């Protein structure tokens, strides 16, 4: 696109990150009449640029942050020396993670927002209530579902909170994994329901419906049927004539004036030149890892421990995605390589039950989301041969006959689990690397193993003839795509970074809108909640701006 603004124009908003939340902010703020520049570190791909190339996408960071350019370091505890190791993965392009996600679009449950009140404190963790309730967020979940195009069956999940509108589109056609999962779950007295999915089951708002090509999770959609912000919202933002998307623009610092207000952002452009874009306000939507990193890199005389960090909690209480994958082999072909990943889900074990003796629970979905290279290299039971004729025969026989059930389990907020800067390791732009410190709370492992047993029962009841747990998924978590909680939302500026409207406590014209605001991680699948928060924040920001209160 041609440039609408120059860096010296003082635009109304600079949005940093064009992902699940940034795409919402871009569309809502520009629709509302504001002038917006969106800085996105990754490229701007079109549907024709996406492929079915497993090697490039899955093994060569084709759509994600490239560890060769942006190394991470990892340690379990602050006492350890961090070592170079990829620890976070996120969609690195216009549309961000909403381009390559599985598209599960679960709302959090009403009790997710007040677990501390219901369950009390958890030793070794900092479980807190949210400063907002499910009812506060409900209208924005609905807005997100209708704006983006979500397929599902409202009311089919008996554990969901109340909803003000049905889904705009009917559920996707059920796959064999969904049929078997539902059969097994019902035998056990459970309540499976059609997956709410950010994929179009029918044409919607000028976009084509899914053609079931099967390269969905981790890939970008070649027909624009996945309801990413790239497909659904960015075109509307651009059409407003007030929003300029700048791809290949890597933010390095948010600049602050002597009055303690932010003045814009400095970034590296495609040629590696530093550019300062002036703005009246800054909205950071860079994800739960890069948002705190950018704040910590934005040190100044007024904010010596990093921007908006008077509480000292920027980067802390990071939460990751947990959950075991259980696999099974069936008698007849399921051909799970076709269509979307998930068509059936259940939430029977979602709520934390003190009788179990540990905090947490999980949702379970039916899926078998291995592409051929990953299946052949990693997925076969470890007590069977891993190469040679017998292995080759099993791999070939199993692939089309596989079913899986994935757990999506709780992850507690623990203070020392964090994003920080590693000054010893630099990225390709000379900036300090993202250092992750992470160790699951003991209850997180217990919840994961408890849910894995339920997954095994369901697949066994479904008739799978051989059932096993993917061993790589039940180890301590050291790697995540769900990046949550590192700049928590709260009423108290001493223990949280943003208020209940996603505005930084310390800086009136700075907003942080992405997974970093999450107070709890619920049972994973955070995208719907991240986007609902973004719609809510956008609503608030526009009203405040019109009243002159930013």
């Amino acid at each position, binding site marked *: 696109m041609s440039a609408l603004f120059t860096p010296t124009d003082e635009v109304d908003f600079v949005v940093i990150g064009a992902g699940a939340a940034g795409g919402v902010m871009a569309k809502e703020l520009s629709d509302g009449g504001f002038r917006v520049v969106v800085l996105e570190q990754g490229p701007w791909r079109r549907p024709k640029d996406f492929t079915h190339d*497993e090697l490039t996408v899955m093994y060569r960071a084709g759509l994600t942050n490239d560890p060769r350019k942006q190394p991470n370091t990892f340690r379990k505890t602050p006492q350890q020396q961090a070592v170079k190791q990829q620890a976070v993965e996120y969609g690195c392009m216009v549309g961000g993670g909403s381009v390559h996600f599985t598209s599960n679009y679960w709302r959090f449950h009403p009790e997710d927002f007040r677990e501390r009140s219901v369950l009390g404190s958890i030793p070794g963790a900092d479980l807190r209530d949210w400063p907002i309730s499910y009812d506060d967020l409900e209208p924005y979940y609905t807005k997100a579902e209708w704006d983006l195009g979500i397929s599902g069956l409202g009311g089919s999940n008996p554990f969901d909170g109340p909803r003000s509108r049905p889904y705009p589109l009917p559920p996707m056609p059920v*796959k064999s994994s969904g049929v*078997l999962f539902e059969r097994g779950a019902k035998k056990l007295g459970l309540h*499976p329901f059609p997956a709410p999915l950010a994929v179009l089951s029918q044409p919607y708002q000028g976009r084509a419906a899914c053609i079931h*090509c099967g390269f969905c999770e981790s890939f970008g959609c070649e027909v624009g049927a996945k309801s990413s912000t790239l497909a659904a919202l960015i075109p509307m933002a651009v059409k407003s004539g007030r929003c300029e998307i700048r791809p290949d623009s890597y933010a390095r610092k948010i600049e602050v004036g002597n009055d303690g207000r932010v003045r814009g952002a400095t970034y590296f452009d495609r040629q590696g030149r530093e550019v300062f874009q002036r703005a009246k306000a800054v909205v950071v939507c860079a994800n739960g890892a890069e948002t705190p990193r950018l704040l910590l890199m934005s040190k100044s005389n007024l904010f010596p421990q990093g921007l908006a960090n008077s509480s000292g909690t920027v980067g802390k209480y990071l939460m990751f995605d947990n959950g075991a994958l259980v696999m099974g082999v069936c008698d*007849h072909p399921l051909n799970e390589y076709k269509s979307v990943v998930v068509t059936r889900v259940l939430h029977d074990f979602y709520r934390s039950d003190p009788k179990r003796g540990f905090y947490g629970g999980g949702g379970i979905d039916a899926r078998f989301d291995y592409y051929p290279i990953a299946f052949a290299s990693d997925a076969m039971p470890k007590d069977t041969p*891993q190469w040679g004729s017998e292995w*080759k025969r099993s*791999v070939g026989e199993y*692939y089309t006959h596989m079913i899986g059930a994935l757990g999506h389990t709780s992850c507690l907020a623990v203070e020392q689990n964090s994003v920080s800067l590693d000054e010893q390791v630099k990225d390709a732009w000379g900036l300090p690397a993202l250092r992750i410190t992470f160790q699951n709370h003991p209850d997180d492992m217990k919840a994961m193993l408890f849910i894995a047993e339920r997954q095994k029962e369901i697949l066994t009841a479904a008739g799978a003839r051989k059932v096993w747990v993917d061993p790589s998924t039940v180890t301590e978590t050291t790697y995540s795509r769900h990046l949550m909680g590192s700049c928590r939302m709260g009423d108290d500026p001493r223990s949280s970074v943003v208020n209940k409207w996603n505005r930084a406590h310390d800086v009136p014209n700075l907003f942080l809108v992405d997974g970093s605001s999450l107070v709890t991680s619920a049972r994973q699948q955070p995208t719907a909640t991240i986007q609902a928060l973004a719609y809510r924040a956008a609503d608030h920001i526009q009203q405040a701006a019109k009243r002159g209160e930013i």
Partner: protein
Amino acid sequence: MHVTRREWVLAVACWAELLRAQSAEERYVWFDAATAAEIKAMAARIIPEDDTPGAESAGVIWFIDRALAGHDQDKQSLYRSGLAEAQAKRTELFPGSASIASLSVDQQIALLTAIEKAEFFQQVRLHTIMGFLSDPLHGGNRGGVGWKLMGSGHEMHYDPPFGFYDANGSA
């Protein structure tokens, strides 16, 4: 004999095509022939030719060569040191043998079993699988033989029902 301009142009085009085809004969970019033969022998045990095509038919060695010359350059030293260790193990297990490629199939299996925990073997295994199952544009999986083994289609469009269970009644 009278040659028209059109015939002349055609003849030149054919000659140029012939030259291009000859020069396009595959050559290794990173491997030397001896190293390639050893890695090829390992790949052939990892994914053997049996009643279905294996690493050899899929052209896995060409994939590995391109990977080592390109994206996986950082694995070159592992290939050098790992292969040297594998050769030492071969000499220990089969004194007097000349190369991995010249061992019998049973001997090759015994050797690879002895080194299967090593990082080098794990890397060759992963490269072999990648060369067997990645998009043919990367140099392997020739004729899509890997995808055929898995039974995974690569169509752009499918219609339901997708499998046996959704075709045969609901839950």
